[in-house]
C-alpha cells in the first residue's frame, strides 16, 4: 500500500490504531455497529485506508468484502486521502435555482480541481453535496464546519484565501 495508507507501524499512526482498537472494543457485539465504526474511523484517519478496513474486518468478524461494500456505498465515506478542509457546494434545489452551478465553476477555477478532487497542497477537497438545509441562504457553501450563505462567485477567492493563511 502507498505510504498514505497509514500502516500500523508508521510514525504517528500507532496511536491512531490504538484509538481505533478502543472504538472497536466499544462496538464489538453492538448490532449494526459497522456504520458508526466507519464514521469514527474516518474522523480519526481523515479517510478510510485499506489497513484500517482490514483491522475493522478482523475485529468485528465481518468479511472485508462486506466492509468494502458498505464503505463504497455511502458517499460520506472516502477510501482516498482527503484535504484538510472539505469544500462542499450545496446542489439542493434552492441553491441550484439561485446560482450554485456558477459558484461551483468559480470554485473549480479558483482551486484548480474538479469535483471530488483534492488540491495539490492537500488543503481542500472539493465536493458537491445534497441539500444542507440552509435554503434560506442559498446558494450555500461549506468549508469544514463553516457555513457560507449567499455566496456570489466574486466572493470565492477571498473566502479561500482566509484558509490558506491559517
Amino acid at each position, binding site marked *: 500500500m502507498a505510504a498514505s495508507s497509514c500502516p500500523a507501524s508508521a510514525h504517528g499512526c500507532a496511536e491512531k490504531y490504538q484509538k481505533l482498537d478502543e472504538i472497536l472494543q466499544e462496538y464489538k457485539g453492538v448490532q449494526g455497529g459497522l456504520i458508526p465504526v466507519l464514521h469514527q474511523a474516518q474522523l480519526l484517519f481523515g479517510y478510510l485506508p485499506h489497513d484500517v478496513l482490514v483491522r475493522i474486518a478482523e475485529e468485528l468478524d465481518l468479511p472485508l468484502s462486506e466492509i468494502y461494500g458498505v464503505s463504497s*456505498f455511502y458517499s460520506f465515506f472516502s477510501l482516498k486521502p482527503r484535504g484538510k478542509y472539505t469544500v462542499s457546494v450545496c446542489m439542493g*434545489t434552492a441553491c441550484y435555482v439561485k446560482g450554485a452551478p456558477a459558484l461551483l465553476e468559480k470554485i473549480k477555477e479558483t482551486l484548480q480541481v474538479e469535483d471530488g478532487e483534492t488540491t495539490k497542497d492537500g488543503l481542500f477537497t472539493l465536493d458537491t453535496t445534497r441539500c444542507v438545509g440552509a*435554503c434560506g*441562504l*442559498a446558494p450555500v457553501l461549506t468549508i469544514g464546519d463553516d457555513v457560507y450563505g449567499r455566496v456570489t462567485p466574486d466572493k470565492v477567492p477571498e473566502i479561500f484565501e482566509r484558509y490558506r493563511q491559517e
Partner: protein
Amino acid sequence: MKLYRAHVLICGGAGCISSGCHAVKEEFIRELQANGLQDEIQLIETGCVGSCDLGPIVIVYPEGVFYQHVTPEDVQEIVNEHLLKGRYVKRKMHRHPSSGEPVVSSREMDFFRHQTRIALRNVGLINPESIEEYIARDGYFALGKVLNEMTPEEVIQVIKESGLRGRGGAGFPTGLKWEFTRKAGGADERTEKYVVCNADEGDPGAFMDRSILEGDPHSIIEAMAIAAYAIGAGQGYIYVRAEYPLAVARMKQAIAKAREYGLLGQNIMGTGFSFDLEIRVGAGAFVCGEETALIASIEGKRGEPRMKPPFPATSGLWGKPTLINNVETFANIPVIILKGAQWFSRIGTEKSKGTKVFAIAGKINTTGLVEVPMGTTLRKIIFELGGGIPNGKKFKAAQTGGPSGGCLTEKHLDTPVDYESLQAAGSMMGSGGLIVMDEDTCMVDVARFFLEFTQDESCGKCVPCRIGTKHMLEILTRITEGKGEEGDLETLEELAKVIASSSLCGLGQSAPNPVLSTLRNFRDEYEAHIKEKRCPAGVCTALKRYEIIPEQCKGCGLCARVCPVQAISGVRKEPYLIDQEICSKCGLCLSKCPFGAIVVK
C-alpha cells in the same frame, strides 16, 4: 425559578449561525453585564425562528419586538435604548412591506400571523438545550398522561381519530401504522419491537425536520416514548443524516438529559414502562429515506431497499415489527394526546387533518419555514407569508415534493393544498419543500437537475431505476445542449411510464415525476429547445446567444479585448459584432460592457 422582566431570544438556527448570530450573542452577554442587567434580562439561544434570510434575528419579549439582520455593532443600541429606556430601535425592526411602518410584535408579521404552529410549537421559542423549558411548555405531560391514564389501545384510538397522516411524503394514516405494528407478532406481548424516527431528511429544499431536531429535540423523544408504549417496543432509533451535525449534537444532549430525569430508560415515571433511544447517523445516501433502505442502514448494511410486503410493521429492523415515522409526524403526537383527537381534526381539510410545515425557498422574498393548516392555498403561502417574488419578476412555478414531486403553476395557485389536491395536480406533498421559480428559471433545466439527482442517488439494485433514469438524463442533457431531436419527448414519456411502474422502491417509482409534470405544464419550453434551439428563460448555456445592440454600442472595443476566444471584432467608434460560431458563451463581454449594449437571448 428566577423572574426576569424581559427575555432576549436569539435565533440559533443553522441559517442564523452562518449569518453570525454567535457574535451577536457574545456582544449581548457583554453589554448586559456592563449595564448590570444580567439578573433582570434573560438571554436565550433558541432553535430556528423560521425566517432564515432575515437573520441574525433577535426577538425581545414581552412585546415580541422583532429585530432583523442584527450585527454586533447594533447590540449596544438595543440594550441602551430598548432594554434600559424602553424605546424601540426602529431602524433594526421588521417593517410592514406595504406601509413601511415598523411592526411592533412579531406576532403581527405576515410571515407569522397566518401560521398555526403545532409541530413547530416550541421551535424558536425555547432553549432547545434546556429540558426545563420544554417541560414548562407542557413537555412530557402527554407521556405522563399516556403512561398513567391510558391503555395502548386507547392511545392508538386517539391517533386514529385525529386523522394524522405521515408527514414524510406518502401520507399514510399514522394511527393505522401504529395499530398494525401493535398487532404484529400476535398476542405475544414479549415480541421484540422497535420504534424508528426517520430523520434522513433528504429532499433538497426541505429542512423542517432539521429545524425540529435542532429546536425542539425533546418533543421527538416524548413522542417516540408514547409510540413505544402504544405498540409495545422497548428500544428506539433516530436515524439522522450526516449532513446535520448540529441536530445530532442537540439530540444526543437531549437524550442524556431525558435519561437523567428518568424520562428514558428503566421504569419511566415509576410506571414500570421502559424505553431507551439510540441515534444512528446516516452516511450520505438519499435512498436511505426509504424505510426499508433505512432499516438496512441501521443494521449496518448497504442502504438498499427491498420488496414490500412484508412491511416494516410486520418485519422491520432485524426482522422484528418496526414502526417508522417521520420527525414532523412525531412532533404532532404530544399535542394530539393533550388536546385530543377532536381538536386536531377540526384543523385542515376533509382528508388531510392538522397542519403542514413548508420550507419555502428559491425566488421568494421571505424564505424559511412556515406551518399552516392543511388546505391553505399556494397563493397565500407564496404571496402573503412569503411576500411574493423579488425584483418584480413573474411567478412561474412552485416545485413541491422534491425529486419525487412536480411543478405547480399559476392555475394551481388557488387550489387548497393537501395530500389529494397536490396529487391531482400532478405533484405530491412530499416532505414539504416548496421551491418557488420565476420567469428566469428554465423548466427543462430543472427537470434535468432532478433527474441528475435521482440518477446519482439510485442505489443500482433494480434495472428500471438504474438504467432507465440514466437514459432519461441523457436525453434531457441533449435537449438542454441544443441537440434535442424529434421524438425525444415521446421517448421520455414512454421511459417514464416504464420506470414508474416497474421500479423497486419509491425513489425509482417517483423519479420521472419532475419530467412528466414539466412536460405537462411547460411542453412549449421543451419544444423551443428542440425545434428552435432556443432556451426561453436564457438559462441553458449552449443555447445562449450573446448579441451587441448596434444602437447602444459606442465602439469602445472593451468587449473584444476581454473576449477569451477572440469572437468579437470591429472598428473603434463603430458597433462591434460577435461571431456566433466562435463564441464560447462565457458571458464576460456582457459583464464588462459599460453601456449595457450586450444582451443574451
